[in-house]
């Protein structure tokens, strides 16, 4: 006998037509699965009533796998084969992994993604994550379909907003490997906003402050007419609750004057540190006591105040990205209508306090910060599986992390789509030829905030050929940038008189880590002044060269229009301009250009007269 759920009025599914979909928060520290039951999103518990599944996978010698609490219980004893915080390794190379030297794992630095050698063989982070997802999938099927068995229609898995393509792809692959139909990946902060029902709230700006186990994300969402628009995102992919554990662990090691620890002892003390951190949320002091492998005993007491002092720099690290996100969205603190707290680490009183001070308002925290993301994902999954009447689904917009543009003469980057533009987006800009008779144009697609191409990231190059020969500046070449909803960029160039076209498709964020993105942004702020100067210099150089070229071409053609003196005077100015091109002050070049302009005024006038005469020769007025 099937167990039935209550539906919304008029939305009862036909028999055997239930489309069961779940939302999964695949977290660094803990993972959860949630679903909409009886019209309400709920987290699905395991047989022991636990909602959180520790994201810990232990590989056994006999090929077996333990996931969650079973693995956690043995991690101090078997740290090499017990993988914790695998999310940090998703889609990452060894060099991207922070604290690799402190990890107890036997890493293999393979191209693409780091791998871990375990007693059961070499495992990729995708395989490890899939083990976690398999457990959640089994839990969901048992909860939703019952023992009779049955399939889930699909799952929405959440990822940090800052995950790049490689990390997103790895997450999708893990879902597939676990036998899940991944309906879509959803940014964690957006999921949290959905869980809080902000889609039904007053229109306005909301900030989502997500300090999870391993990642910090700040997102600025704009809600209008029930649609969420991600205005800006920022964050730190290597900052989270784990770092607070690590900090406390280091403090304990110093305080207890411990010699370098074995990996077992490290794991043991880290677990103790985490427990102490959680205890300090509601207590004024916590005790850490343990007996190490070396028979040494550790027994220290840490007060809430001491803990807050030592971790204050970690809390402060969230301020920069938060300010930047707000600046990118061109907003003031006062414009933020509400702040949503997500992630277990936001339970810490000094985190709450700092966020309240920063935004000048108490943050929203009445939902369990560990569960909000999974709940929001479940609501989204329910919509995507088709269980909700249409018109109720969300259009979740994403943004471009770095500006996209093309290289123009002089190695300058011309922005076509500015960063933080919402996708999908299409922008077009017209460019022209630089030389007379130019029949091809090389299009170099770049990404970044800097003025010079050499400081930006090269994405792709292609050529537009078959431009009809024309004088410089006459051709009209329309370059269109289009970024689709999946973040795929295609660039096309089209010459308007002949219609010749060339195009290329690129993945703009491919292979870019968040650190790289952050660094590129930081550089653009740091070098803003230099860049403006460099741009002005290059522009004047290009203009000067163009001037020289054009004037010399004219002299070759129509030298007879000038007297010997006039010709000599013009050549003197041209030589002077040529010399200024090497100097580093753009104003010097500019004045050289102006002098050539003045010296060639009369010449240009005479050439104009001659070409008009030529054009009109032998033609009657009526035929014009």
């Amino acid at each position: 006998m099937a167990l039935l759920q209550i539906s919304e009025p008029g939305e009862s599914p036909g028999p055997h037509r239930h489309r069961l979909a779940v939302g999964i928060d695949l977290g660094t520290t803990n993972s959860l699965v949630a679903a909409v039951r009886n019209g309400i999103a709920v987290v699905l518990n395991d047989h022991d009533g636990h909602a959180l599944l520790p994201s810990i996978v232990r590989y056994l010698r006999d090929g077996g796998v333990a996931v969650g609490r079973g693995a956690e219980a043995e991690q101090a004893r078997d740290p090499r084969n017990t993988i914790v915080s695998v999310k940090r390794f998703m889609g990452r190379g060894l060099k991207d992994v922070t604290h690799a030297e402190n990890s107890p794992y036997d890493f293999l630095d393979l191209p693409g993604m780091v791998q871990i050698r375990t007693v059961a063989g070499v495992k990729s982070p995708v395989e490890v994550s899939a083990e976690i997802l398999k457990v959640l999938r089994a839990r969901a099927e048992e909860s939703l379909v019952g023992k009779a068995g049955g399939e889930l229609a699909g799952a929405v898995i959440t990822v940090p907003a800052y995950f790049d393509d490689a990390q997103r792809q790895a997450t999708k692959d893990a879902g597939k490997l676990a036998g899940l139909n991944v309906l879509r990946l959803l940014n964690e902060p957006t999921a949290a906003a959905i869980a809080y029902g902000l889609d039904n709230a007053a229109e306005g700006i909301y900030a989502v402050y997500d300090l999870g186990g391993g990642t910090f994300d700040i997102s600025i969402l704009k809600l209008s007419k029930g649609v969420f628009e991600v205005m800006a995102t920022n964050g730190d992919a290597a900052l989270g609750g784990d770092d607070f554990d690590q900090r406390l662990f280091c403090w304990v090691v110093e305080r207890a004057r411990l010699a370098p620890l074995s990996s077992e002892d490290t794991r043991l003390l880290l677990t103790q540190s985490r427990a102490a951190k959680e205890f300090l949320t509601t207590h004024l002091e916590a005790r850490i006591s343990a007996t190490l492998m070396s028979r040494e005993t550790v027994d220290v007491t840490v007060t809430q105040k001491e803990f807050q002092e030592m971790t204050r720099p970690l809390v402060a690290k969230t301020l920069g990205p938060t300010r930047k996100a707000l600046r990118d969205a061109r907003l003031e603190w006062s414009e933020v209508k509400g702040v949503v707290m997500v992630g277990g680490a936001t339970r810490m009183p000094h985190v709450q306090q700092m966020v309240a001070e920063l935004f000048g308002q108490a943050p929203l925290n009445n939902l369990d910060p560990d569960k909000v993301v999974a709940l929001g994902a479940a609501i989204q999954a329910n919509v995507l599986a088709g269980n909700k009447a249409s018109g109720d689904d969300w259009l979740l917009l994403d943004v471009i992390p770095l500006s996209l543009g093309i290289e123009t003469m002089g190695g300058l980057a011309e922005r076509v789509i500015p960063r933080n533009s919402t996708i999908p987006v299409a922008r077009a800009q017209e460019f022209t030829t630089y030389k007379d008779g130019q029949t091809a144009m090389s299009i170099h697609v770049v990404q970044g905030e800097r003025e010079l191409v050499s400081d930006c990231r090269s994405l792709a190059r292609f050529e537009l050929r078959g431009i009809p020969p024309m004088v410089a500046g006459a051709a009209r070449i329309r370059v269109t940038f289009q970024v689709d909803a999946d973040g795929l960029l295609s660039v096309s160039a089209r010459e308007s008189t002949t219609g010749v076209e060339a195009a290329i498709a690129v993945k703009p964020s491919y292979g870019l880590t968040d650190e790289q993105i952050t660094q590129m942004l930081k550089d653009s702020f740091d070098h803003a002044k230099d860049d403006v100067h460099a741009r002005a210099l290059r522009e004047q150089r290009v203009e000067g060269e163009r001037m020289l070229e054009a004037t010399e071409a004219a002299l070759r053609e129509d030298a007879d229009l000038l007297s010997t003196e006039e010709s000599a005077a013009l050549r003197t100015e041209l030589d002077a301009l040529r010399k200024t091109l090497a100097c580093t002050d753009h104003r010097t070049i500019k004045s050289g250009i102006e002098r050539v302009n003045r010296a060639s005024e009369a010449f240009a006038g005479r050439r104009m007269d001659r070409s008009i005469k030529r054009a009109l020769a032998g033609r009657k007025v009526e035929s014009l």
Partner: protein
Amino acid sequence: MITLTERAATHVSNFLSKRGKGVGLRLGVRTSGCSGLAYRIEYADAVNPEDQTFESHGVKVVVDPKSLQFLEGTELDFTREGLNEGFKFNNPNVKDECGCGESFNV
């Protein structure tokens, strides 16, 4: 007469308060499914003039007259089977039902 077990009523009340709106629970049947008729169980936002209503453990149960013919005497229960939980119709009118219990015949 249609009734709810106390456990079913408690869950319905909880769901209704979490949902934040609704006057009660609407039960019904429709013709579909492998054995002819299928149950409907929905939140009721309004009571129509022709509807029959019952009060059971503080929960208002709404049934349309056509469905009531097939549901008369039914008791709605809420049960748990392993991790799965949900509502179950104990319907004395049922002659046979499909293996899954989602549809039935009278």
